[in-house]
């Protein structure tokens, strides 16, 4: 089957929004995809539980860069609660669709966002420090490998 990126994906790949680093961020996260080994970093500036600024870095494929671009667009200006409820399917929809083999890239982007928010919640004492167990990691990553059966 021929699989293509649509023009909107290409546009975000060529000129990604919100790309870069925030110095002294209020929260940050670096997550990796167990599917292909790519990584994404998310930096947040938060004011009154609203995401004032968001930036990302990506070591990943075109679809990874494009979904990070769109997910950060979606999250900007939202409350933490709203941002936490952003689903990878929304990001895909917003981009006008992704090839199924690339769904996991969008999951990675959403995961990065959630991990950064959780980092903030933890830092502000609203989430307990999680103990990192391999089971937990596996569960966290399960829906990255199998996005359609994922937590969303």
């Amino acid at each position, binding site marked *: 089957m021929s699989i293509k990126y649509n023009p909107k994906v*290409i546009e975000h*790949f*060529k000129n*990604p929004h919100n*790309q*870069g*680093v925030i110095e002294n961020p209020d929260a940050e996260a*670096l997550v990796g995809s167990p*599917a*292909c*080994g*790519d*990584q*994404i*970093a998310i930096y947040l500036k938060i004011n009154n539980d609203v995401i004032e600024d968001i930036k*990302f*870095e*990506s*070591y*990943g*494929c*075109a679809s*990874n*860069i494009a979904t990070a671009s769109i997910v950060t667009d979606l999250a900007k200006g939202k409350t933490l609660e709203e941002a936490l409820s952003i689903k990878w399917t929304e990001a895909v929809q917003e981009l006008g669709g992704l090839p199924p*083999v690339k769904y996991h*890239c969008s999951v990675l982007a959403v995961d990065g966002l959630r991990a950064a928010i959780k980092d903030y919640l933890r830092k502000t004492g609203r989430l307990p420090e999680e103990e990192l167990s391999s089971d937990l990691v596996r569960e966290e990553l399960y829906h990255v490998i199998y996005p359609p059966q994922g937590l969303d």
Partner: protein
Amino acid sequence: MRAYFDHCRSTYVDKSVIDEMIPWWTEKYWAPSSFTYTGTTAAEAIENSQMAYAKFFGGKPDEVHFAPSHAVANNIAIQGVLNNVESGTVPHVITTSIEHGTTMDLVKQLEKLGKIKVTYLPVDSNGLVDLDALSESLGKDTVLVTMAAVNYMVGTIQPVKDISKIIRDVNPEVLIHYDLTWALGRLADLALAPYADIITASIERIHGPKGVTALWVKKGVPVKGPIYGSQAYSRIVPGTPDVPSIVGAAKALELMQDGLEQKIEHMKHIRNRLINETMELVPETLLNGPEGDLRSPSNVCLTFRYVEGESVEMYLDMEDITVDTGSACANPFLEANHVILAMYGDYERAHGAIRMTFTWTTTDEEVDKFLEVIPGIVAKLRKISPLAPKVYKE
């Protein structure tokens, strides 16, 4: 004009090869057989091609067969030999850890089916097969050693004559299969028949027809299956032979041999420019595979540290430049290239690898075109990479 650096994956068919085939499609479209004018005309055409490849490999004309694809040829070479091992025993096959999927996936599948035991020879950081490991792995139950003479990913040229000597010193009954696909038109001397029992070589990579692979099987080497059917034309490759492609295969060989030394020199020039000038222009560029004469003249494989390969490939594609990548993202099974993993054990290096393969008609202009854009592309991707050091972020 597109700059095309993926000739190892698919390449153009030479116009003169097409011209040579046309009358065999439109006028002399006959099946080979004995006695009639039409039948013998077709049979003679096949014989001419057999002679050309026999001479080239250093074997005999009736030892040369033509398979309809490279995968089919390699399956006949490998499974065909194993099908003759008496049932009840599980034969041992030796290959390397850096084979192309055509051999790798085949051997793995047979291993999974329990039909063979396999040794995957390790390689050093040049991609050269570990000769001590080879000696040690050769056992009483070893039936076959199979490997490519030139690696498809990093261009390592294996010392096949030495390898054959080691194998034959230990056990002269072990059969040796060399896949010369990506060696054709890249190495000057491929008269390897004295050193092998079976040779396969896809003609596509020397601008010959797509659907034909030369399959040389030394007289007396038993080959059976895995494709069965009418043996009216060939005991080894069943079915009506594709005469036009077989004619085109001989033409492609002839054209390839014409000025081969210069062709190789030209490819070395292209290779060296791509390696040296890219490394000058782009800091922290790693060369995958060997330098100098251990390397095929038409292969370059680079990793730009901190960036993923598919992104580079896509940016180059948008600039009308075709390369290949070892990135897991670009692989249908999301696996990073196993050759680079086997050589360096470094996932990131495989994931970021950009492979450039070319031919004797590749031009300096194509190289210029690549060199013009690659520094900007890598800089852009490093800027957004969470792995890249600060210096790339300005």
